[in-house]
Protein backbone atom coordinates (compact mmCIF):
# COMPACT_ATOMS: atom_id res chain seq x y z
CA UNK A 1 0.00 0.00 0.00
CA UNK A 2 2.76 2.35 0.96
CA UNK A 3 4.56 1.59 -2.25
CA UNK A 4 1.44 2.33 -4.30
CA UNK A 5 1.00 5.71 -2.62
CA UNK A 6 4.67 6.44 -3.20
CA UNK A 7 4.30 5.61 -6.87
CA UNK A 8 1.38 7.98 -7.19
CA UNK A 9 3.13 10.83 -5.40
CA UNK A 10 6.43 10.33 -7.21
CA UNK A 11 5.11 10.15 -10.73
CA UNK A 12 2.77 13.08 -10.36
CA UNK A 13 4.98 15.54 -8.52
CA UNK A 14 8.54 14.33 -8.11
CA UNK A 15 9.35 12.50 -11.31
CA UNK A 16 6.82 14.17 -13.54
CA UNK A 17 6.84 12.64 -17.01
CA UNK A 18 6.91 15.97 -18.79
CA UNK A 19 9.01 18.15 -16.53
CA UNK A 20 11.68 15.72 -15.37
CA UNK A 21 11.60 12.81 -17.83
CA UNK A 22 10.83 14.48 -21.19
CA UNK A 23 8.13 12.06 -22.27
CA UNK A 24 5.26 13.33 -24.37
CA UNK A 25 6.79 16.69 -25.19
CA UNK A 26 5.26 16.84 -28.66
CA UNK A 27 1.63 16.63 -27.52
CA UNK A 28 2.58 18.79 -24.56
CA UNK A 29 3.64 21.55 -26.94
CA UNK A 30 0.91 20.80 -29.42
CA UNK A 31 -2.29 20.65 -27.42
CA UNK A 32 -1.57 22.97 -24.53
CA UNK A 33 -2.81 26.03 -26.36
CA UNK A 34 -6.37 25.90 -25.09
CA UNK A 35 -7.71 24.71 -21.78
CA UNK A 36 -10.57 22.73 -23.32
CA UNK A 37 -8.32 20.73 -25.63
CA UNK A 38 -5.79 20.20 -22.87
CA UNK A 39 -8.44 18.69 -20.64
CA UNK A 40 -9.75 16.54 -23.50
CA UNK A 41 -6.29 15.27 -24.30
CA UNK A 42 -5.59 14.61 -20.64
CA UNK A 43 -8.64 12.45 -20.29
CA UNK A 44 -7.77 10.52 -23.41
CA UNK A 45 -4.20 9.97 -22.23
CA UNK A 46 -5.23 8.78 -18.77
CA UNK A 47 -7.63 6.34 -20.34
CA UNK A 48 -5.31 4.95 -22.98
CA UNK A 49 -2.18 4.85 -20.83
CA UNK A 50 -3.83 2.85 -18.09
CA UNK A 51 -5.45 0.47 -20.50
CA UNK A 52 -2.28 0.05 -22.57
CA UNK A 53 -0.21 -0.74 -19.52
CA UNK A 54 -2.73 -3.33 -18.44
CA UNK A 55 -2.69 -4.98 -21.86
CA UNK A 56 1.05 -4.91 -22.44
CA UNK A 57 1.80 -6.16 -18.95
CA UNK A 58 -0.41 -9.14 -19.51
CA UNK A 59 1.05 -9.90 -22.93
CA UNK A 60 4.58 -9.42 -21.69
CA UNK A 61 4.18 -11.59 -18.61
CA UNK A 62 2.11 -14.35 -20.10
CA UNK A 63 3.26 -14.48 -23.72
CA UNK A 64 6.68 -12.90 -24.25
CA UNK A 65 8.45 -14.01 -21.08
CA UNK A 66 7.40 -17.67 -21.11
CA UNK A 67 8.57 -17.97 -24.70
CA UNK A 68 11.79 -16.03 -24.07
CA UNK A 69 10.75 -13.41 -26.55
CA UNK A 70 11.28 -10.26 -24.51
CA UNK A 71 13.30 -8.77 -27.35
CA UNK A 72 10.05 -8.47 -29.25
CA UNK A 73 8.68 -6.01 -26.71
CA UNK A 74 9.07 -2.88 -28.86
CA UNK A 75 7.26 -4.32 -31.83
CA UNK A 76 4.59 -5.93 -29.71
CA UNK A 77 4.00 -2.95 -27.48
CA UNK A 78 3.67 -0.45 -30.27
CA UNK A 79 1.28 -2.75 -32.04
CA UNK A 80 -0.77 -3.16 -28.91
CA UNK A 81 -0.91 0.57 -28.36
CA UNK A 82 -1.82 1.35 -31.95
CA UNK A 83 -4.54 -1.27 -31.99
CA UNK A 84 -5.78 -0.26 -28.59
CA UNK A 85 -6.18 3.33 -29.65
CA UNK A 86 -8.16 2.20 -32.67
CA UNK A 87 -10.22 -0.11 -30.54
CA UNK A 88 -11.00 2.59 -28.02
CA UNK A 89 -11.96 4.90 -30.82
CA UNK A 90 -14.42 2.44 -32.27
CA UNK A 91 -15.90 1.36 -29.00
CA UNK A 92 -16.27 4.91 -27.83
CA UNK A 93 -17.98 5.93 -31.01
CA UNK A 94 -20.50 3.18 -30.47
CA UNK A 95 -21.04 3.43 -26.75
CA UNK A 96 -20.75 7.11 -25.96
CA UNK A 97 -20.90 9.48 -28.89
CA UNK A 98 -20.67 12.49 -26.56
CA UNK A 99 -17.44 11.26 -25.00
CA UNK A 100 -16.18 10.44 -28.46
CA UNK A 101 -16.85 14.00 -29.55
CA UNK A 102 -14.71 15.15 -26.68
CA UNK A 103 -11.88 12.64 -26.89
CA UNK A 104 -12.09 11.43 -30.46
CA UNK A 105 -9.82 13.95 -32.10
CA UNK A 106 -7.09 13.32 -29.57
CA UNK A 107 -7.01 9.55 -29.88
CA UNK A 108 -4.92 9.33 -33.07
CA UNK A 109 -2.41 11.71 -31.50
CA UNK A 110 -1.80 9.27 -28.70
CA UNK A 111 -0.36 6.54 -30.89
CA UNK A 112 2.78 8.56 -31.36
CA UNK A 113 2.77 9.96 -27.85
CA UNK A 114 6.01 8.65 -26.47
CA UNK A 115 4.69 8.99 -22.93
CA UNK A 116 2.44 5.99 -23.59
CA UNK A 117 5.23 3.92 -25.01
CA UNK A 118 7.51 5.02 -22.20
CA UNK A 119 5.03 4.07 -19.52
CA UNK A 120 4.55 0.55 -20.82
CA UNK A 121 8.28 0.03 -21.27
CA UNK A 122 9.14 1.41 -17.84
CA UNK A 123 6.44 -0.64 -16.17
CA UNK A 124 8.11 -3.75 -17.50
CA UNK A 125 11.66 -2.59 -16.88
CA UNK A 126 11.01 -1.61 -13.28
CA UNK A 127 9.48 -5.05 -12.71
CA UNK A 128 6.25 -3.72 -11.27
CA UNK A 129 3.46 -6.10 -10.41
CA UNK A 130 0.22 -5.82 -12.34
CA UNK A 131 -1.43 -3.55 -9.77
CA UNK A 132 1.70 -1.46 -9.42
CA UNK A 133 1.95 -1.13 -13.17
CA UNK A 134 -1.59 0.09 -13.51
CA UNK A 135 -1.17 2.55 -10.64
CA UNK A 136 2.10 3.67 -12.16
CA UNK A 137 0.41 4.29 -15.50
CA UNK A 138 -2.39 6.16 -13.79
CA UNK A 139 0.02 8.34 -11.84
CA UNK A 140 2.22 9.02 -14.84
CA UNK A 141 -0.76 9.98 -16.97
CA UNK A 142 -2.14 12.18 -14.22
CA UNK A 143 1.25 13.85 -13.97
CA UNK A 144 1.19 14.39 -17.72
CA UNK A 145 -2.32 15.79 -17.47
CA UNK A 146 -1.34 18.13 -14.67
CA UNK A 147 1.54 19.48 -16.73
CA UNK A 148 -0.73 19.90 -19.72
CA UNK A 149 -3.44 21.72 -17.81
CA UNK A 150 -1.04 24.04 -16.00
CA UNK A 151 0.60 24.84 -19.30
CA UNK A 152 -2.74 25.47 -20.98
CA UNK A 153 -3.64 27.98 -18.28
CA UNK A 154 -0.34 29.76 -18.72
CA UNK A 155 -0.53 29.75 -22.49
CA UNK A 156 -4.03 31.16 -22.53
CA UNK A 157 -2.63 34.07 -20.57
CA UNK A 158 0.37 34.29 -22.86
CA UNK A 159 -1.95 34.66 -25.83
CA UNK A 160 -2.65 38.15 -24.53
CA UNK A 161 0.98 38.99 -23.83
CA UNK A 162 3.44 40.96 -25.92
CA UNK A 163 6.00 38.20 -26.28
CA UNK A 164 9.01 39.01 -28.51
CA UNK A 165 8.23 37.79 -32.02
CA UNK A 166 11.13 35.37 -32.22
CA UNK A 167 10.11 33.62 -29.02
CA UNK A 168 6.40 33.36 -29.72
CA UNK A 169 4.90 29.90 -29.72
CA UNK A 170 7.06 26.93 -28.88
CA UNK A 171 10.14 28.81 -27.69
CA UNK A 172 8.41 30.62 -24.87
CA UNK A 173 6.45 27.48 -24.04
CA UNK A 174 9.70 25.56 -23.66
CA UNK A 175 11.18 28.22 -21.42
CA UNK A 176 8.02 28.20 -19.33
CA UNK A 177 8.28 24.43 -19.09
CA UNK A 178 11.88 24.87 -18.00
CA UNK A 179 10.91 27.14 -15.14
CA UNK A 180 8.12 24.75 -14.19
CA UNK A 181 10.66 21.95 -14.20
CA UNK A 182 12.79 24.06 -11.86
CA UNK A 183 9.85 24.71 -9.59
CA UNK A 184 8.97 21.04 -9.33
CA UNK A 185 12.56 20.25 -8.45
CA UNK A 186 11.52 21.37 -4.98
CA UNK A 187 9.97 17.95 -4.52
CA UNK A 188 13.19 16.23 -5.56
CA UNK A 189 14.10 13.20 -3.52
CA UNK A 190 11.02 13.53 -1.36
CA UNK A 191 10.14 9.85 -1.75
CA UNK A 192 11.99 6.96 -3.26
CA UNK A 193 10.82 3.55 -4.27
Amino acid at each position, binding site marked *: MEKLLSIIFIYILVDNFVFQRFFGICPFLGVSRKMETAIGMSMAVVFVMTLATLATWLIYTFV*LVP*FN*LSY*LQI*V*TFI*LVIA*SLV*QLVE*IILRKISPTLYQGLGIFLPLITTNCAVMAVVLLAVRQEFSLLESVIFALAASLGFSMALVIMAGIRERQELAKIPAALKGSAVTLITAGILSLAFLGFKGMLTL
Partner: protein
Amino acid sequence: MLILYAIATLGLIGLLFGLFLAIVARVFTVETDPRVEAVKEVLPNVNCGACGYAGCVNFAEAVVHGETASNGCIPGGKDTAKAVAEVLGQEVTEHTPLVATLFCIGDYGKTADRFIYEGIEDCAVAGDFNGGFKACSYGCLGLGNCVRACPFEVIRIGLHGLPVIDREKCSGCGLCAKACPRLLIKILPLSDDGHLVFCSSQDRGKTVSKACKVGCIACKACVKVCPQEAIVMEDNLAVIDLAKCNDCGECVLKCPANTIHKRSAIPSEGAALAAIAEEVVSETA
Protein backbone atom coordinates in the same frame (compact mmCIF):
# COMPACT_ATOMS: atom_id res chain seq x y z
CA MET B 1 13.13 -23.27 -32.22
CA LEU B 2 13.36 -19.81 -30.72
CA ILE B 3 13.13 -18.20 -34.08
CA LEU B 4 10.05 -20.21 -34.79
CA TYR B 5 8.43 -19.00 -31.61
CA ALA B 6 9.30 -15.46 -32.45
CA ILE B 7 7.87 -15.65 -35.91
CA ALA B 8 4.82 -17.47 -34.69
CA THR B 9 4.06 -15.08 -31.87
CA LEU B 10 4.69 -11.93 -33.77
CA GLY B 11 2.93 -13.32 -36.80
CA LEU B 12 -0.05 -14.28 -34.73
CA ILE B 13 -0.25 -10.97 -32.98
CA GLY B 14 0.28 -9.16 -36.24
CA LEU B 15 -2.28 -11.29 -38.00
CA LEU B 16 -4.86 -10.79 -35.29
CA PHE B 17 -4.40 -7.04 -35.13
CA GLY B 18 -4.05 -6.76 -38.88
CA LEU B 19 -7.24 -8.66 -39.51
CA PHE B 20 -9.03 -6.73 -36.86
CA LEU B 21 -7.88 -3.37 -38.11
CA ALA B 22 -8.59 -4.27 -41.71
CA ILE B 23 -12.19 -5.04 -40.83
CA VAL B 24 -12.47 -1.93 -38.74
CA ALA B 25 -10.89 0.21 -41.43
CA ARG B 26 -13.31 -1.07 -44.04
CA VAL B 27 -16.31 -0.40 -41.86
CA PHE B 28 -15.37 3.01 -40.63
CA THR B 29 -13.35 4.76 -43.31
CA VAL B 30 -14.21 8.33 -44.13
CA GLU B 31 -13.42 9.06 -47.75
CA THR B 32 -11.09 12.02 -48.12
CA ASP B 33 -10.12 13.52 -51.41
CA PRO B 34 -6.34 13.65 -51.79
CA ARG B 35 -6.74 16.57 -54.15
CA VAL B 36 -7.87 18.78 -51.27
CA GLU B 37 -4.53 18.25 -49.60
CA ALA B 38 -2.74 18.91 -52.88
CA VAL B 39 -4.59 22.15 -53.46
CA LYS B 40 -3.96 23.25 -49.92
CA GLU B 41 -0.27 22.76 -50.43
CA VAL B 42 -0.06 25.25 -53.26
CA LEU B 43 -2.08 27.90 -51.43
CA PRO B 44 -0.34 30.63 -49.39
CA ASN B 45 -1.82 29.14 -46.17
CA VAL B 46 -2.16 32.50 -44.46
CA ASN B 47 -5.83 31.76 -43.75
CA CYS B 48 -6.71 35.36 -44.49
CA GLY B 49 -10.25 34.57 -45.56
CA ALA B 50 -10.23 36.90 -48.54
CA CYS B 51 -11.64 34.14 -50.72
CA GLY B 52 -14.79 34.11 -48.62
CA TYR B 53 -13.99 30.82 -46.91
CA ALA B 54 -12.91 30.36 -43.32
CA GLY B 55 -9.42 29.21 -44.19
CA CYS B 56 -7.21 27.79 -46.89
CA VAL B 57 -8.41 24.22 -46.27
CA ASN B 58 -12.00 25.25 -46.71
CA PHE B 59 -11.15 27.05 -49.90
CA ALA B 60 -9.28 23.99 -51.14
CA GLU B 61 -12.33 21.85 -50.46
CA ALA B 62 -14.56 24.30 -52.24
CA VAL B 63 -12.30 24.39 -55.28
CA VAL B 64 -12.08 20.63 -55.46
CA HIS B 65 -15.85 20.32 -55.23
CA GLY B 66 -16.21 22.90 -57.95
CA GLU B 67 -17.93 25.43 -55.71
CA THR B 68 -15.56 28.22 -56.57
CA ALA B 69 -13.14 29.06 -59.36
CA SER B 70 -9.50 28.11 -59.22
CA ASN B 71 -8.48 31.77 -59.21
CA GLY B 72 -10.50 32.47 -56.07
CA CYS B 73 -7.40 32.94 -53.97
CA ILE B 74 -6.85 36.66 -54.23
CA PRO B 75 -3.59 37.00 -52.29
CA GLY B 76 -2.05 34.11 -54.23
CA GLY B 77 -2.58 35.91 -57.50
CA LYS B 78 -1.79 34.49 -60.87
CA ASP B 79 0.79 31.95 -59.79
CA THR B 80 -1.43 30.30 -57.23
CA ALA B 81 -4.35 30.25 -59.61
CA LYS B 82 -2.18 28.51 -62.12
CA ALA B 83 -0.91 26.00 -59.58
CA VAL B 84 -4.41 25.23 -58.33
CA ALA B 85 -5.65 24.79 -61.85
CA GLU B 86 -2.75 22.49 -62.58
CA VAL B 87 -3.58 20.31 -59.61
CA LEU B 88 -7.17 20.05 -60.74
CA GLY B 89 -6.25 19.68 -64.40
CA GLN B 90 -8.24 22.77 -65.36
CA GLU B 91 -7.39 25.52 -67.74
CA VAL B 92 -5.96 28.66 -66.24
CA THR B 93 -8.45 31.48 -66.11
CA GLU B 94 -7.07 34.99 -66.37
CA HIS B 95 -6.98 36.92 -63.14
CA THR B 96 -6.64 40.66 -62.89
CA PRO B 97 -4.44 41.76 -60.01
CA LEU B 98 -6.26 43.97 -57.56
CA VAL B 99 -5.00 46.60 -55.21
CA ALA B 100 -6.48 48.51 -52.29
CA THR B 101 -7.00 52.23 -52.76
CA LEU B 102 -7.81 54.74 -50.06
CA PHE B 103 -10.44 57.30 -51.02
CA CYS B 104 -9.33 60.09 -48.75
CA ILE B 105 -6.35 62.40 -48.96
CA GLY B 106 -7.28 64.69 -46.10
CA ASP B 107 -4.18 64.24 -44.00
CA TYR B 108 -2.92 66.32 -41.06
CA GLY B 109 -2.26 69.46 -43.04
CA LYS B 110 -5.46 69.35 -45.05
CA THR B 111 -8.25 68.39 -42.69
CA ALA B 112 -8.53 70.00 -39.29
CA ASP B 113 -9.32 68.09 -36.14
CA ARG B 114 -12.36 69.22 -34.19
CA PHE B 115 -10.92 68.13 -30.89
CA ILE B 116 -8.11 66.11 -29.35
CA TYR B 117 -9.25 62.53 -28.97
CA GLU B 118 -7.84 60.67 -26.05
CA GLY B 119 -8.85 57.06 -25.93
CA ILE B 120 -8.65 53.66 -27.51
CA GLU B 121 -6.86 53.79 -30.83
CA ASP B 122 -9.42 52.17 -33.03
CA CYS B 123 -11.14 53.83 -35.98
CA ALA B 124 -14.54 52.36 -35.21
CA VAL B 125 -14.41 53.40 -31.55
CA ALA B 126 -13.02 56.85 -32.24
CA GLY B 127 -15.38 57.34 -35.16
CA ASP B 128 -18.37 56.70 -32.91
CA PHE B 129 -17.05 59.13 -30.37
CA ASN B 130 -18.79 62.47 -30.89
CA GLY B 131 -18.81 61.76 -34.59
CA GLY B 132 -15.05 61.37 -34.77
CA PHE B 133 -12.36 63.88 -34.01
CA LYS B 134 -11.83 64.85 -37.61
CA ALA B 135 -13.65 67.87 -38.96
CA CYS B 136 -14.84 65.73 -41.86
CA SER B 137 -17.18 63.03 -40.68
CA TYR B 138 -16.36 60.90 -43.73
CA GLY B 139 -12.58 61.22 -43.68
CA CYS B 140 -9.94 58.74 -42.68
CA LEU B 141 -9.11 58.84 -38.95
CA GLY B 142 -5.78 57.13 -39.45
CA LEU B 143 -5.94 54.96 -36.34
CA GLY B 144 -4.95 51.94 -38.30
CA ASN B 145 -7.76 49.37 -38.34
CA CYS B 146 -6.69 48.60 -41.90
CA VAL B 147 -3.08 48.22 -40.79
CA ARG B 148 -4.06 45.67 -38.17
CA ALA B 149 -6.35 43.85 -40.57
CA CYS B 150 -3.70 43.38 -43.25
CA PRO B 151 -2.27 39.86 -42.99
CA PHE B 152 0.56 40.73 -45.37
CA GLU B 153 1.79 43.82 -43.51
CA VAL B 154 1.71 46.08 -46.55
CA ILE B 155 -0.20 48.96 -44.94
CA ARG B 156 1.35 51.47 -42.59
CA ILE B 157 0.26 54.78 -41.18
CA GLY B 158 2.32 57.40 -42.94
CA LEU B 159 3.85 60.47 -41.38
CA HIS B 160 0.87 62.59 -42.31
CA GLY B 161 -1.59 60.42 -40.47
CA LEU B 162 -3.08 58.47 -43.35
CA PRO B 163 -2.47 54.84 -44.20
CA VAL B 164 0.05 54.14 -46.93
CA ILE B 165 -0.62 51.07 -49.02
CA ASP B 166 2.27 49.34 -50.74
CA ARG B 167 0.94 48.99 -54.25
CA GLU B 168 3.63 46.53 -55.26
CA LYS B 169 3.00 44.05 -52.49
CA CYS B 170 -0.75 44.55 -51.94
CA SER B 171 -2.60 41.42 -52.93
CA GLY B 172 -5.99 43.09 -53.10
CA CYS B 173 -7.48 40.64 -50.62
CA GLY B 174 -9.87 43.28 -49.35
CA LEU B 175 -9.53 42.64 -45.64
CA CYS B 176 -8.57 46.28 -45.06
CA ALA B 177 -11.65 47.42 -46.93
CA LYS B 178 -13.77 45.28 -44.63
CA ALA B 179 -11.95 46.58 -41.56
CA CYS B 180 -12.45 50.25 -42.40
CA PRO B 181 -15.53 51.44 -40.50
CA ARG B 182 -15.89 54.41 -42.83
CA LEU B 183 -15.61 52.27 -45.98
CA LEU B 184 -12.85 54.41 -47.41
CA ILE B 185 -10.86 51.62 -49.02
CA LYS B 186 -11.94 50.18 -52.34
CA ILE B 187 -10.35 47.29 -54.18
CA LEU B 188 -9.58 48.27 -57.76
CA PRO B 189 -7.71 46.60 -60.60
CA LEU B 190 -4.04 47.43 -60.41
CA SER B 191 -3.59 48.05 -64.12
CA ASP B 192 -5.99 51.00 -64.45
CA ASP B 193 -3.90 53.99 -63.65
CA GLY B 194 -6.78 56.36 -64.36
CA HIS B 195 -7.93 59.44 -62.55
CA LEU B 196 -9.99 59.20 -59.39
CA VAL B 197 -11.79 61.52 -57.02
CA PHE B 198 -9.97 60.94 -53.75
CA CYS B 199 -12.76 61.94 -51.43
CA SER B 200 -15.67 60.09 -49.87
CA SER B 201 -17.57 62.95 -48.26
CA GLN B 202 -21.25 63.06 -49.04
CA ASP B 203 -21.66 66.35 -47.21
CA ARG B 204 -22.72 69.46 -49.07
CA GLY B 205 -20.00 71.59 -50.60
CA LYS B 206 -20.16 74.24 -47.91
CA THR B 207 -19.64 71.75 -45.11
CA VAL B 208 -16.83 70.03 -46.97
CA SER B 209 -14.90 73.18 -47.75
CA LYS B 210 -15.09 74.16 -44.09
CA ALA B 211 -13.77 70.81 -42.98
CA CYS B 212 -11.16 69.90 -45.56
CA LYS B 213 -8.90 71.64 -48.05
CA VAL B 214 -8.95 68.77 -50.52
CA GLY B 215 -12.54 67.50 -50.24
CA CYS B 216 -14.93 67.25 -53.16
CA ILE B 217 -17.22 70.27 -52.89
CA ALA B 218 -19.54 68.98 -55.59
CA CYS B 219 -19.02 72.04 -57.80
CA LYS B 220 -19.46 69.94 -60.94
CA ALA B 221 -16.56 71.68 -62.69
CA CYS B 222 -15.11 68.30 -63.58
CA VAL B 223 -18.43 67.00 -64.84
CA LYS B 224 -18.64 69.92 -67.21
CA VAL B 225 -15.08 69.79 -68.43
CA CYS B 226 -14.76 66.05 -69.03
CA PRO B 227 -14.71 65.43 -72.78
CA GLN B 228 -15.51 61.75 -72.27
CA GLU B 229 -18.54 62.47 -70.07
CA ALA B 230 -17.04 59.99 -67.66
CA ILE B 231 -17.84 61.95 -64.50
CA VAL B 232 -21.18 61.97 -62.70
CA MET B 233 -22.35 63.36 -59.37
CA GLU B 234 -23.55 60.85 -56.78
CA ASP B 235 -24.49 61.97 -53.27
CA ASN B 236 -22.59 65.26 -53.53
CA LEU B 237 -19.55 63.42 -54.76
CA ALA B 238 -17.99 63.30 -58.21
CA VAL B 239 -17.43 59.78 -59.46
CA ILE B 240 -15.25 58.92 -62.44
CA ASP B 241 -16.11 55.95 -64.55
CA LEU B 242 -12.73 54.38 -65.20
CA ALA B 243 -14.04 52.59 -68.26
CA LYS B 244 -14.75 55.88 -70.00
CA CYS B 245 -11.82 57.88 -68.64
CA ASN B 246 -9.05 58.38 -71.16
CA ASP B 247 -6.58 59.98 -68.77
CA CYS B 248 -6.70 63.38 -70.46
CA GLY B 249 -6.28 65.14 -67.13
CA GLU B 250 -8.66 68.05 -67.86
CA CYS B 251 -10.55 67.46 -64.64
CA VAL B 252 -7.37 67.62 -62.57
CA LEU B 253 -6.69 71.10 -63.92
CA LYS B 254 -10.26 72.26 -63.33
CA CYS B 255 -10.85 70.84 -59.86
CA PRO B 256 -10.76 73.83 -57.46
CA ALA B 257 -10.19 71.67 -54.40
CA ASN B 258 -7.43 69.53 -55.83
CA THR B 259 -9.40 66.38 -55.13
CA ILE B 260 -8.85 64.61 -58.44
CA HIS B 261 -5.52 62.97 -59.08
CA LYS B 262 -3.89 60.46 -61.27
CA ARG B 263 -3.67 57.38 -59.10
CA SER B 264 0.07 57.09 -59.36
CA ALA B 265 0.55 60.70 -58.35
CA ILE B 266 -0.86 60.72 -54.84
CA PRO B 267 1.07 59.94 -51.70
CA SER B 268 -0.81 56.85 -50.59
CA GLU B 269 -0.08 55.22 -53.91
CA GLY B 270 2.29 55.00 -56.78
CA ALA B 271 5.77 56.38 -57.17
CA ALA B 272 5.91 58.52 -54.06
CA LEU B 273 5.10 55.48 -51.99
CA ALA B 274 8.53 53.93 -51.83
CA ALA B 275 10.01 57.09 -50.34
CA ILE B 276 7.26 57.44 -47.76
CA ALA B 277 7.28 53.80 -46.82
CA GLU B 278 10.99 54.07 -46.17
CA GLU B 279 10.45 57.16 -44.09
CA VAL B 280 7.86 55.33 -42.05
CA VAL B 281 10.10 52.37 -41.55
CA SER B 282 12.96 54.48 -40.28
CA GLU B 283 10.54 56.34 -38.04
CA THR B 284 9.06 53.27 -36.42
CA ALA B 285 12.20 51.16 -36.24
